[in-house]
């Protein structure tokens, strides 16, 4: 079982590494969006510090939506996805493997660079740590929930925009608890409660999202 999971993850990682240029686009998008806000709002540090959690989180959300399109599309186009549906392995496991690899190449870089962006917004040490941690818990949940939308819209016209329309409302709790944790820490109230809830959402989506995405993939491949 684990071997199958590892095979899928390794396969997708190798594929991603052989297309390194694609990897950077999501990261650049994230960095650029975050850097645009001071230009639009003004360099007032106290304002920036106040909006930082929301800005970073919304940017992470949009970046992960942008990345979703690539989760299944290539495999769908060349027929390897179809073959995955016909393997004797549980499809949800294969889907989980694909999501894991997807998060490693698109989500994790965002998490790692986020403290740097937080510095631009004048966030302090502890807040930066909570920001990092909240993204570490939140972005995998975004990938998992997003996978359902990506699977549902596979092969449809205008799939990219449609996927955002379907998935964004479902990700609101992640956004609320994610940015809430940073905000609560910054205002000295402590963000642990938020982080626990974020963790609970992650666990729940870890269990349910692969199943839903697997069902959706079967429907989309008919």
């Amino acid at each position, binding site marked *: 079982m684990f071997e199958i999971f590892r095979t899928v993850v390794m396969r997708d990682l190798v594929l991603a590494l052989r297309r390194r240029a694609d990897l950077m686009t999501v990261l650049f998008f994230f960095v650029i969006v975050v850097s645009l806000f001071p230009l639009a709002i003004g360099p007032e540090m106290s304002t920036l510090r106040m909006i930082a959690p929301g800005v970073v989180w919304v940017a992470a959300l949009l970046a992960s939506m942008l990345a979703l399109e690539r989760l299944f599309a290539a495999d769908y186009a060349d027929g390897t996805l179809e073959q995955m549906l016909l393997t004797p392995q549980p499809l949800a496991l294969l889907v989980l493997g694909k999501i894991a690899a997807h998060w490693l190449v698109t989500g994790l870089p965002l998490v790692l660079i986020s403290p740097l962006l937080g510095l631009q917004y004048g966030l302090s040490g502890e807040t930066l740590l909570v920001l990092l941690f909240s993204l570490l818990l939140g972005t995998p949940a975004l990938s998992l929930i997003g996978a359902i939308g990506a699977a549902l819209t596979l092969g449809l016209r205008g799939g990219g925009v449609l996927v955002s329309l379907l998935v964004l409302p479902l990700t609101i709790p992640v956004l609320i608890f994610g940015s809430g944790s940073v905000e609560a820490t910054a205002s000295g109230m402590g963000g642990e409660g938020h982080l626990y809830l974020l963790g609970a959402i992650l666990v729940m989506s870890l269990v349910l999202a692969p199943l839903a995405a697997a069902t959706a993939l079967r429907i989309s491949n*008919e």
Partner: protein
Amino acid sequence: MSSRLVNWFKFSSPSTFYPLAGKIGFWSMVVTVVLLAVGLYMSFFVAPTDYKQGEGYRIIYVHVPAAWMSMFLYVLMAGWAALGLVFNTRLSAMMASALAPTGASMAFIALWTGAFWGKPMWGAWWVWDARLTSELILLFLYLGFIALQSAIDDPRRADRACAVLAIVGVVNVPIIYYSVIWWNTLHQGATIQIRGESSMDPLMLTTLLIMTLAFWAYCIAVAMARVRSIILERERETTWVGEMVKEGRA
């Protein structure tokens, strides 16, 4: 018992459900007209003026039923969609897609009247109140469902894909709702709680009840009308539709 079971299966086929839906739709419409006439009259002229909110409060007779219906219809829609996905029955999926636009319009009415209410009460058209925000998100969920339905050409794939979306949505709705409430309580000051549990006049309650029933009847009538046209569209190749068109009954 067994004969009742047979009856249920009989009506799960579109050809037998079509005339039944027509009857249900017609009578629901009649009920709607009657209840709405009574309900609106009572809302405007009979129900007493609220001592805190004055005359402006009267919009709740539209706002509250619409909000209730929008939430209830989403659950109902997901239920029908799930039935269709599990048992592969055509009619359940048609019911789900017939309910979606009605639910969306209910959510829209709730938001619209909420804004009308908010202006005199809060002095702003829009306030990030927990309930209004959840209603807005619910509208987004409906729009997602409708968008997905119309993006897929093959009706069977559309039904099944939308069913998955509706089920995922229904699992998410409570989480979204509580997260929004939590978010709202943490950002106190942005909103003014005025929908406290002030004791309601019995006459107000009766009016609200009648209006709610009127909305129920309306939603049933509209859903039936829509499901009838969906049946006709999807079954246009079948002989029973052909015969009906020939006889001029469609």
